[in-house]
């Protein structure tokens, strides 16, 4: 995250438009002193523009909460430049992604919201988003659109369409992403297996890519040197040529030696899964 440095102190006056992280655009309605538990504190009272909800924040906490003024034109231009760029890919590890997104939502400012929106939008081109992330996407988009609308003084619908013209350009087909694009940028696959399980993924891409090295190991009796390497690597995708070689051997071996398969680790799993499906089919035949 680029926005780790604390923002300069914020001086607020009545009528100022500010952004309350995760809440949206608010207008300062009063700055007044109140006595609370024997202490005199200055409170900033704000009204959320969207629904008129009132929030009171002690002036001393304004900075730590992450309250900021509505983004300026320069920030908006940065956001559109960022949305146009093809740089951002979400992390495939769901834990890290969630942590980053929460941080971006609360501390990242307008560009942080754009990062969440774009990251999840690009990820959705690889696979459908799980419910929680879909909600996060909608919230981030809502806050982004509201702030853009306030900043540019345009209707929300125009602000939303402005963002989406960039994210979903007219006349261009929806790109189909591969897991490889995300891995090279994210670079961390430690949480991949867990993430897949929890996110209810189709597993068409990742499962295949990870299963390959294991099967390759098992079916390469002739080459002792490569045998030792794959278990150590585990998740190395960069050594593509080494992995590609065993793949055709696998197929050949499978075709030539069908009897040898049941002895290997991966083989017993498959018949176990298929067996229950075959049995019911066989029963009606016996009855007849």
């Amino acid at each position, binding site marked *: 995250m680029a926005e780790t440095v604390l923002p300069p102190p914020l001086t607020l006056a009545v009528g100022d438009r500010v952004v309350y992280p995760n809440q949206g655009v608010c207008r300062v309605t009063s700055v007044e002193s109140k006595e609370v538990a024997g202490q005199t504190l200055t409170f900033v009272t704000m009204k959320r523009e969207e629904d008129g909800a009132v929030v009171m924040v002690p002036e001393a906490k304004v900075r730590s909460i992450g309250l900021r003024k509505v983004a300026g034109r320069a920030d*908006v231009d940065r956001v*559109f430049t960022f949305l146009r760029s093809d740089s951002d890919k979400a992390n495939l590890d769901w834990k890290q992604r969630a942590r980053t997104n929460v941080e971006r939502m609360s501390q990242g400012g307008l560009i942080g919201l754009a990062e969440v929106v774009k990251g*999840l*939008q690009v990820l*959705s081109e690889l696979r*459908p*988003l799980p*419910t929680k992330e*879909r*909600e996060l*996407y*909608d919230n981030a*988009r*809502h806050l982004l*659109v509201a702030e853009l609308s306030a900043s*540019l003084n*345009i*209707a*929300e*619908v*125009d*602000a*939303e*369409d*402005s*963002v*989406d*013209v*960039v994210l*979903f350009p*007219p*006349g*261009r*087909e*929806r790109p189909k992403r591969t897991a490889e694009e995300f891995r090279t940028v994210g670079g961390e696959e430690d949480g991949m297996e867990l993430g897949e399980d929890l996110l209810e993924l189709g597993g068409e891409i990742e499962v295949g890519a990870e299963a390959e090295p294991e099967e390759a190991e098992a079916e390469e009796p002739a080459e002792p040197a490569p045998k030792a390497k794959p278990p150590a690597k585990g998740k190395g995708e960069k050594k593509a040529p080494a992995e590609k070689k065993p793949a055709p051997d696998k197929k050949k071996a499978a075709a030539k030696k069908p009897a040898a398969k049941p002895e290997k680790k991966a083989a017993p799993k498959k018949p176990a899964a298929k067996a229950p499906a075959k049995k019911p089919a066989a029963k009606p035949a016996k009855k007849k």
Partner: protein
Amino acid sequence: MIRLVTLDAYDPKVIDRLCKVLYTAFGVGCEHAGDMPLPGGQSEPFDAQALLQALPSPRAYADDKILYLTSRKLKPRSLVSGDVPSSGFSNQNGPRALVSSAGVKDPEAGLKLIARHAMHQLGHTWELHHCLDPRCAMYPPWTLNYDAGDTFFDTFCRDKSEQKIRLAKS
């Protein structure tokens, strides 16, 4: 309740079928609230936003949504980040939406497309944002394969619209 107002002549069968589709999509009653002439001072292609503002409202309750249907062409909209072709217009959480059937030669055959655009614009009036699912009616309507899609909301959009409708006072 969705009140459908036609700004041009349409076959009553088409209107009837459109109302049924909208009823199915939102779970809210939909009825034809009559015809209305196009306001003067504007020419084709119309500026969707200006046209919607100029149109008078029929009699309706506070939470009713009014959908205007026209067969006239709409101007592409100029936005901060570029121009975008327009097939309708509505404000987020607004009471009114406009949809054009200009791209459909035979409204009876192309009803699915008109209904999909109508669902999209009405969805905005219930605070739905654009969706990530290309099959959903809330997917950006200017995208390449949008017109080939079905009259369908994905789970998230359907749940959200149902929630908004449930919270309506009337």
